């Protein structure tokens, strides 16, 4: 029988930065909650974990990353570090979305919020989990997921909405697909709509709980790849970050003369 594989997972999609080393089916994590320190702390955290378990990068089978949505800079730090480590050690990269990683992490969270704890410990056969992250500029990244037999299933892909649309769409999902299903909302996106949570609660006849303090975590990403077989594999290390927000209003220049037919480009 072959030993279960060992691998590393990284997440830096919010102000929390986390690293998980999976060795023989066990999950070992390190995290840092200091905003804007991700680049500084990530490699030392990885080195610490590897040393502690007597592992080297080359003994791993892959590197798992959250590719967003979330902080643009955080996502790039995470991907760039994963690219360097993976390319330098000849490993593939497996990328998952950070909202799924958040949903998964919430479903196994060791010390959840009391409300979340009581729902999880009742082992519902079906659970609706809505991870939401504050996207600033008064918008929210979110997705809808069902947890069934301890497995996460996306029922809507990661998207970006205004608070009003978010509340309306979540209410509709509950009314149409999950009125009798317990519901949990996790992630700091919920802080943006604290005053509208009762609108959502009235749609749901089962138990509800909210915990804005749970954020995406590398352990969620690591488990998604193992349990749900989620993730896109990249052998050459090229991964497209999931920014979602691509249409930020950068103002284009106004021309007086007509634009030249072919703009000069040097690419030697």
């Amino acid at each position, binding site marked *: 029988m072959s030993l279960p594989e060992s691998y590393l997972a990284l997440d830096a999609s919010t102000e929390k930065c986390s690293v998980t080393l999976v060795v023989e089916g066990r999950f070992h994590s390190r995290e840092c909650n200091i905003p804007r320190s991700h*680049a*500084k*702390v*990530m*490699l*030392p955290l*990885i*080195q610490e974990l590897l040393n502690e378990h007597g592992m080297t*990068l080359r003994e791993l089978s892959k590197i798992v990353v959250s590719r967003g949505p979330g902080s*643009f*800079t955080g996502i*790039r*730090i995470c*991907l*760039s*570090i*994963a*690219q*360097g*480590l*993976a*390319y*330098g*050690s000849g490993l593939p990269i497996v990328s998952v979305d950070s909202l799924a990683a958040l949903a998964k992490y919430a479903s196994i969270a060791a010390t959840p919020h009391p409300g979340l704890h009581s729902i999880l410990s009742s082992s519902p056969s079906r659970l609706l989990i809505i991870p939401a992250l504050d996207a600033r500029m008064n918008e929210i990244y979110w997705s809808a997921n069902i947890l069934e037999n301890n497995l996460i299933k996306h029922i809507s892909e990661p998207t970006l909405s205004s608070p009003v649309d978010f509340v309306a769409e979540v209410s509709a999902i509950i009314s149409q697909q999950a009125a009798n299903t317990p519901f949990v909302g996790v992630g700091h996106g919920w802080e943006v709509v604290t005053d509208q949570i009762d609108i959502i609660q009235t749609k749901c006849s089962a138990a509800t709980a909210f915990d804005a303090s749970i954020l995406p975590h590398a352990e969620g990403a690591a488990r998604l790849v193992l349990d749900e077989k989620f993730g896109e594999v990249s052998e*050459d*290390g*090229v991964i*497209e*970050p999931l*920014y979602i927000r691509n249409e*930020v209003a*950068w*103002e*284009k*220049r106004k*021309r*007086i*003369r007509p634009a*030249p037919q072919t*703009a*000069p*480009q*040097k*690419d*030697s």
Partner: protein
Amino acid sequence: MRILGIETSCDETGVAVYDSEQGLLGHRLYSQIKLHSEYGGVVPELASRDHVRKLLPLIEDVLTGTDSKDAIDGVAFTSGPGLIGALLVGACVGRSLAMAWNCPAIGVHHMEGHLLAPLLEDNPPEFPFVALLVSGGHTQLVAVKGIGQYEMLGESLDDAAGEAFDKAAKMLDLDYPGGPNLAKLAEQGDVTRFKFPRPMTDRPGLDFSFSGLKTFTLNTVAEHSLASGLPDDQTCADIAAAFQEAVVDTLVIKCRRALQQTGLKRLIIAGGVSANSRLREKLQQALAKIQSEVFYARHEFCTDNGAMIAFAGCQRLLVGQQDDVVIDVKPRWPLQTLSAV
């Protein structure tokens, strides 16, 4: 010692392999000029997005092309000054590669990279020399005793020379980056038609100021503008020529003064504006008169590139300097604070 160099401080993704025994083995550059010219200047978020997309494939190309995939002894990456998000991409990839390869890594000062770029050429200048650093973000005169031994002689109190070129170009509705486009237009201009000021040349000292020249250009353009909002084509070219001449003369006067003041006989010019032909020509003439020599890098190594970073990093790694695994980029980083090699 064979070094992989990575440059991502602004709008060019540069990668190179430099070998201390064999010299420069290969280099590649991806320029984002086309992307940013739509916006009339660098959009930092878009720059970072492009770096993360382009860097790894570029590294793969250069390593394969130089047969260095399993032969790298150290990694050098630009860790400042520059755009923080852009710097982070190169620093994170570079530092992590070194960790995976189990080799030393070093963060390189972008302007030291520029400053040492002329040393990549066949007849490199010997130390000591005076360096004129003229790029999009910097205009500095530095006395250089050796690598890392930098004494600031003077610098711009406001806009950098490259920035002044870019802004003047914008006033003439030229594409970003304006420097090379303005220089090209100036070739068609009559340099005698307008007389622009040579700021701060009538006073002693080696500092620069280009913001007055910017205002002067703006006023001249406004004064001659037609209904379109621009002067006629010939006038635009004449303004370009007068502007370029004023910047070049100012730089030449200060360089000559710096050589006289330090008693040094060699000048190197580096950074994007050092690609300017008129500057090279006038410096050569002026320095010949005082028995001094000017050195510069080949055109493609005047603007940002990976070769200069690989070279500068190699010099430091050779003497055992290196960074730990804490990735620390510095958007602002005074050149004088570097340690000597």
